[in-house]
């Protein structure tokens, strides 16, 4: 009697919960795991998680993908490798997600990428920009944002687009991130324009004063300063440059937001000579970016959208496109194949189309700079624009 009851119970479970071969995929849901620094000093970059989640919520409101709604499971990694490993293990083993859309800090991505590769879990990067993430090539790993090589190259090209540029100084952190960015910029300047960096300076994290650096820059009188610095130190450099009357244009990196720098510096006059890498089509505060801002506000009314909030929206749209292309019989292999077939995908938010292929998973190969012009954020592809 007990055996018959057990068989009947199992049959009922099978009828009410049809078994799908792929983890994280049910009849009406696709489970996506997001991990990012939602607290801690790097949490400013973790805002990318809200933009991505807003895109997924929006597609759910429109009926989902092949009848399935996206269910997001969000974890906080605090930009800490150990916490990221725990978060990803929870997402894959306990929450049983179909794929991961996560990783804002390169260190956390490096810590989890081999494990996800072994499990063949599709891993789409949320915001981590190190070019080393996609080297060596991993079949399951996609980077739908401009990486550090692209950013450093764009910064040099922008500086050299001003006629007469002959002296470029570089100031960076001495960590792996700063050194990698500096190396790419230095090599590109040499290879493409035959120039050497005229002055290289260090500015360490959590520094509260940049007087020695500014005085050295003022002495050297470069045409541009490339700043491979994190947001707080970039703001410090801009603030102290203004304090000492230095008018040399300072070019900031992808990790630095124009409006965040303005807020930190607290002086619009100091922002006159500051430009930073910009990945988006519409300018900040423009009517064109308003729909994206509203989309985030709709699902996260307490979240104040800024540059980093939009960072993963293009990637989320590429994920949705691939999920559509993969068809109703969704598998991880089909999804990876669909991602690799994405070519010149215009997300509407990124200013460069996303293109992946079977042997290249660095999807964004361009960008622009942004600066205040007449008090308004203005996107500039070249200096003369």
């Amino acid at each position: 009697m007990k055996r018959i009851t057990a068989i009947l119970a199992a049959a009922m479970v099978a009828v009410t919960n049809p078994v799908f071969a792929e983890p994280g995929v049910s009849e009406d849901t696709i489970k996506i795991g997001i991990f990012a620094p939602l607290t801690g000093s790097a949490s400013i970059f973790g805002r990318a998680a809200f933009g991505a989640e807003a895109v997924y919520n929006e597609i759910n409101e429109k009926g989902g993908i092949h009848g399935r709604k996206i269910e997001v499971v969000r974890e906080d990694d605090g930009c800490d490798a150990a916490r990221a490993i725990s978060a990803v293990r929870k997402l894959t083993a306990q929450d049983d997600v179909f794929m991961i859309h996560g990783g804002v800090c390169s260190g956390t991505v490096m810590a989890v990428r081999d494990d996800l590769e072994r499990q063949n879990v599709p891993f789409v990067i949320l915001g981590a920009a190190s070019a080393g993430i996609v080297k060596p090539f991993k079949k399951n790993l996609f980077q739908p944002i401009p990486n550090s090589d692209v950013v450093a190259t764009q910064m040099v090209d922008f500086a050299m687009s001003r006629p007469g540029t002959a002296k470029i100084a570089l100031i960076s952190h001495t960590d792996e991130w700063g050194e990698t960015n500096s190396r790419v910029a230095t090599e590109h300047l040499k290879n493409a324009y035959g120039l050497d960096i005229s002055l290289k300076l260090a500015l360490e994290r959590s520094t509260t004063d940049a007087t020695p650096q500014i005085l050295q820059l003022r002495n050297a009188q470069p045409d541009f300063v490339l700043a491979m610095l994190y947001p707080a130190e970039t703001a410090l450099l801009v603030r102290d440059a203004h304090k000492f009357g230095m008018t040399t244009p300072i070019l900031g990196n992808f990790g630095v937001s124009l409006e965040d720098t303005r807020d930190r510096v607290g002086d619009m006059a100091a922002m006159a000579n500051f430009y930073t890498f910009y990945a988006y089509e519409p300018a900040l505060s423009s009517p064109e970016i308003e729909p994206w801002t509203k989309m985030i506000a709709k699902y996260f009314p307490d979240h104040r959208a800024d540059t980093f909030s939009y960072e993963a929206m293009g990637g989320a749209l590429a994920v949705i496109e691939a999920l559509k292309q993969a068809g109703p019989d969704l598998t991880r292999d089909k999804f990876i194949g669909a991602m690799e077939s994405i070519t010149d995908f215009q997300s509407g938010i990124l200013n460069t189309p996303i293109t992946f292929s079977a042997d290249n998973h660095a999807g964004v190969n361009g960008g622009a700079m942004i600066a205040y012009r007449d008090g308004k954020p203005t996107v500039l592809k070249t200096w003369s624009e």
Partner: protein
Amino acid sequence: MFAQLVASGLVQGSIYAVIALGMTVLFRSTGVVHFGYGAFFMAGAFAVYVFSQVIGLAFVLAFLAAVAVLVLLGMACERMLVRPIAHGPHVAVAMMTVAMSYLLTGVARFFWGQEVLRMPPIIDVPPIFIGSIVLTAQDLLIIGGCMALVVAFFLFFARTKLGKLMQAASQVPRGAALVGINVPGFHMAMWGVVAGIAAVAGTLVAPVTMLYPDMGAHLLIKAFAAMTFGGFGNLGGAVLGGLIIGLAEQLAGFYISTALIDIFAYLVIIVVLIVLPNGILGKKEATRV
């Protein structure tokens, strides 16, 4: 150029000095090395921010309220967290201060985890030019505030009966208790006082460093270096150590390499501990047997 570096070095050094001063006052009056002092400094800065920017109090009121809150916080920490283990090993008290640091930082992260907040300068005027030297009003306030605190505590410990009593109670607590001095009460008061100094330091420094939950950690290392350099427990030494480290960072950064600035404090700790273990103004400890 040299004059500007010296001026900027004095400002930076004053920041280190004022934090080192708070730690030294506590060490001198209670014998506790406060590894959580950076977090108290952060809490002081956030308290001023909350009272002035969130609640909307006038700056002076916000400042006084923040100092009052920090004094109460310091006293509460002593009464509830330190006193119960005060007779245990020194390392237990030290670990408790580390735990306080993580607790306060964690609370700040909970409320402001995603924010780096800008604290408006106390006096918002254009930079001041003294010959070729450029200084902001905030720079001058930092130097002035630091010097005022140093003088006040120097006079307190050297010239007042209460100050001398506190030092005596710290050095021989059992003897002090035997003659009727309320040693735990003294200790609690000093925890409150140094927490109040942290609020003053946070108020002065936050417009320069900006506000974020981990803002105290980096400066704590510099303050330790200043204490080590000047001699543990020596008020003048802590301040002198802070100023020298600030100056040396600026000069070494300009004339040798900017990469030296960040490691300078660690170099100071290593070299001083090996060559001059008691610091430049510290006294050699003698134990009577």
